[in-house]
């Protein structure tokens, strides 16, 4: 099968020049020298060299099959769909402490993909991010991924007081599950202190700092191969400051989305980002929709919407390539993001049971 030149990852102007000079397929470029190519297509020598490197990268790889692959940088080989499936299955999802949410996500937060959480202020987006930042560190012998996390905080809501709550509860939960020696040994490396030391925090104060951090992140990830989760809380906040040119914002967001997807796949990390809600007027009716515009909707593979239904908190998976949209109930306790028990007990009593160390005078955590 001939591979057409327009499918290579080159800039559009270069592709146009190639096609205009008569180079339709990569096969046409196989035996051309850079100087010759640059003369015929009026590309600069450097561009011609890049084109040829891209072509050689594509054809030098494995067998051609239905699988895509090999896009980024042009130097990787093609993969079959079967190989891709096997690779995906090797990557464990990040299990939360909420089994219902894990089920809705198909096993947990998927590694190698981008996930977005949308919701109104106060519904629990940051709580879920903090929970996952701890959950990613759960040792493998407990069913976790045993990885580190990079947490990009743009709002200042990464509060150590809360992280310590969640970490303490996670450590306690795991220590109650210990059954064998391997798990006992693993608990020595899973303490509140180690959880904090494996969480890398970056505070970005505006969108330029965020963009800068994302350009430098691939390098950081290469130096820290144990990172399995990248959290950005939130993407919306810095980008919803006033932009004079909204199309510039869209282009920057598109570039950011591409970077995140490429980081997720090449470094095998799960990318989790939060978004705000905005009201949109449609023919007299106002509706709440995720912020950052329509095209941003394509940035994440999976989108989760957290919202209130009366006094209940609901999580709805409204975009997912694998699973049908599912809605689950959740609650935020002093220990973190949790399922709502099916029992008849009101949440307040349950929270009290778990948190025996808390002072007796403390009021119930959920009203």
């Amino acid at each position: 099968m001939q591979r057409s030149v327009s499918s290579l990852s080159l800039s559009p102007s270069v592709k146009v020049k190639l096609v205009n000079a008569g180079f339709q397929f990569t096969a046409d470029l196989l035996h051309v020298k850079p100087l010759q190519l640059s003369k015929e297509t009026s590309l600069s020598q450097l561009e011609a060299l890049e084109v040829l490197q891209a072509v050689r990268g594509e054809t030098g790889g494995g067998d051609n099959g239905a699988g895509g692959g090999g896009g980024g940088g042009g130097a990787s080989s093609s993969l079959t769909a079967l190989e891709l499936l096997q690779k995906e299955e090797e990557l464990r999802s990040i299990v939360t402490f909420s089994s219902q949410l894990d089920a809705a996500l198909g096993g947990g937060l998927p590694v190698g993909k981008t996930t977005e959480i949308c919701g109104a202020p106060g519904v629990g987006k940051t709580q879920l991010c903090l929970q996952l930042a701890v959950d990613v560190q759960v040792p493998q012998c407990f069913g976790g991924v045993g990885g580190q996390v990079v947490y990009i905080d743009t709002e200042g809501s990464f509060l150590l007081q809360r992280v310590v709550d969640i970490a303490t509860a996670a450590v306690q939960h795991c220590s109650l599950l210990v059954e064998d020696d391997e798990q006992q040994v693993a608990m020595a490396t899973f303490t509140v202190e180690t959880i904090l030391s494996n969480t890398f925090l970056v505070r970005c104060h505006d969108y330029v700092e965020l963009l800068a951090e994302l350009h430098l992140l691939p390098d950081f990830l290469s130096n820290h191969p144990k990172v399995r989760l990248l959290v950005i809380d939130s993407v919306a906040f810095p980008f919803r400051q006033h932009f004079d040119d909204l199309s510039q914002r869209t282009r920057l967001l598109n570039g950011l989305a591409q970077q995140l997807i490429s980081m997720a796949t090449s470094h095998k990390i799960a990318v989790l980002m939060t978004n705000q809600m905005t009201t949109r007027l449609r023919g007299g009716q106002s509706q709440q929709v995720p912020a950052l515009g329509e095209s941003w909707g394509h940035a994440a593979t999976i989108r989760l919407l957290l919202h209130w239904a009366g006094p209940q908190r609901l999580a709805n998976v409204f975009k997912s390539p694998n699973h049908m949209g599912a809605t689950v109930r959740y609650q935020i306790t002093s220990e973190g993001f949790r399922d709502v028990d099916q029992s008849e007990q009101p949440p307040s009593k349950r929270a009290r049971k778990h948190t025996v160390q808390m002072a007796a005078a403390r009021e119930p955590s959920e009203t």
Partner: protein
Amino acid sequence: MDQLELNPRIIAAVSRAHLKSAREVLCVSGSDLQRVTGLSSSDVQQLLIAAATSCRRHHPIAALVLHRKFDAGLRLSVGCPVLNQLLRGGLLVGGVTELSGESGAGKTQLALQLCLSVQYPTQYGGLHSGAVYICTEDSFPIKRLQQLITDQSLLRSDVPPSLISSLQFSDRIYIEHVADLDSLQVCLSRRVPLLLTRGLVRLLVVDSLAALFRSEFQAADWLERSKQLLTFSSTLHHLSSRFTTPVLCINQVTDFLSSSDDSLGPLSSSVSPALGLLWANQVMVRLMMRRLQVTVAQGDQSSVLRRLEVVFAPHLARSGRDAAVEGEGVLTSV
């Protein structure tokens, strides 16, 4: 731009494209950069990395390092131990805290109390500095402030009386009256940063903001209002993070429209903070104060009991505490 460690050829291409700083370079998307500078993609990559390195303020840092810093978990005490417990220590020193409620609920009372509590040393929950109080509506309640100052030793039994009497409270509260958005912006961009830079204040109170943003705009001007609100919020956030200073915004409430979305939380009251979702997204800690139906008697005076509630906060449970507004301040008698 010249300070970046790059091949001069790349720097020349960048200046030909009229990009003057690393920040400007980062604001242009990758493919646009290639087009505008005519550089190859690997050159553009180098350029972006160099620009990013110069714009980056801090490297990723392990949370444990922050946890061990002496001022980790710094809070501004509210002056009452029960209310502090509700807030797990007090106001956050970074980020915007909103206090909303109906008129007469006690918001200004609590704000005044904070202006005094900030002046104590950190061991007593203060920040050892003054406060700037921006009034947008009524004139500043100076008499009430004097009364609170006189009765401080009643409220703050945890502080030695000698320390209380040595503090010149009224000297360190800077009062600004602003009547419209323009003067608010001037105040926030000139006078407040000056006070902050000089270390004279470490608390910023805006009382109240709905007054400014509601009266100036008709419904049709919502685009302009949104822009102004975002600019204002951005200024507050920058001041707060740059000077690690708590910002308290007092807000009014509007009636909760039953037909609108359940968006902002379960209905615990029939009113919700003004300025809608756009402003709610900018707030890190949202508190509400309500008047209850119960009165509490003290001596021959009786006043209506209030309730301070946490609507949302990253580190606080949704909860509340009853409090009374006494002569010496807002407190919960245990």
